[in-house]
């Protein structure tokens, strides 16, 4: 099943400038793994070597942050939209 994935501007250079790509998978984890296989530069940006999510990336299934669902095991359905956005933070130190 192919699901639409929205790519943030910072990662678009590694997906040929596209703002939206499609990937196959039944779960968020499968989508991210397959996306990484298709776009080599993307692999290490989203998932760590142990397969878990980088803390500075947020992944949403429709309106929900997958960290508050089943994380990478969150199941996707036809018509779902997945959005990847960077975490934004800073401070005075």
């Amino acid at each position, binding site marked *: 099943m192919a699901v639409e994935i929205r790519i*943030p*501007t*910072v990662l678009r250079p590694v997906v040929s400038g596209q703002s939206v790509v499609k990937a196959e998978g039944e779960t968020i984890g499968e989508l991210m793994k397959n996306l990484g296989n298709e776009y080599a530069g993307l692999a290490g940006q989203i998932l760590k070597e142990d397969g878990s999510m980088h803390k*500075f990336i*947020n992944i*949403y299934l429709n*309106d929900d*942050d997958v960290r508050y669902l089943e994380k990478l095991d969150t199941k996707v359905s036809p018509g779902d939209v997945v*959005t990847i*956005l*960077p*975490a*934004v*933070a*800073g*401070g*005075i*130190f």
Partner: protein
Amino acid sequence: MLFISRDFLVDIVDHALDAYPLEACGLLGGIREEVNKVYRTRNDAASARIYELNPLDYLRADRDAESQGNSIIGVYHSHTHSEPYPSPTDLAQAPDPSWHYVLVSLKRKFPSVRSYRIIDGKISEEEVVLIKV
């Protein structure tokens, strides 16, 4: 260069003052160097020293910007007791080299606003140009 209307600039400073003594943060919607919308977002850290931009606020802002033919072109936050210059944390966590990084300092009697680009770990200040809309 960052092109921004007076109203948007005032909105950013107002947000910083409203949030004081905590740090305020928000996003800039627009096209390349021109700000077309300011999105106030929640600081999940609720701290006077750090900010963590609420991820769902970011998602909503991103969708709104895209729906209007814009994109998120930058982020602003306040430094309540320090100069308007990116900290080592700001530098380390700058998410996007195409973004504008706007800082509001409330250290002195009158707020001051500066904008920077952060590319490959290098900080460069850019001119903030007030425009009429």
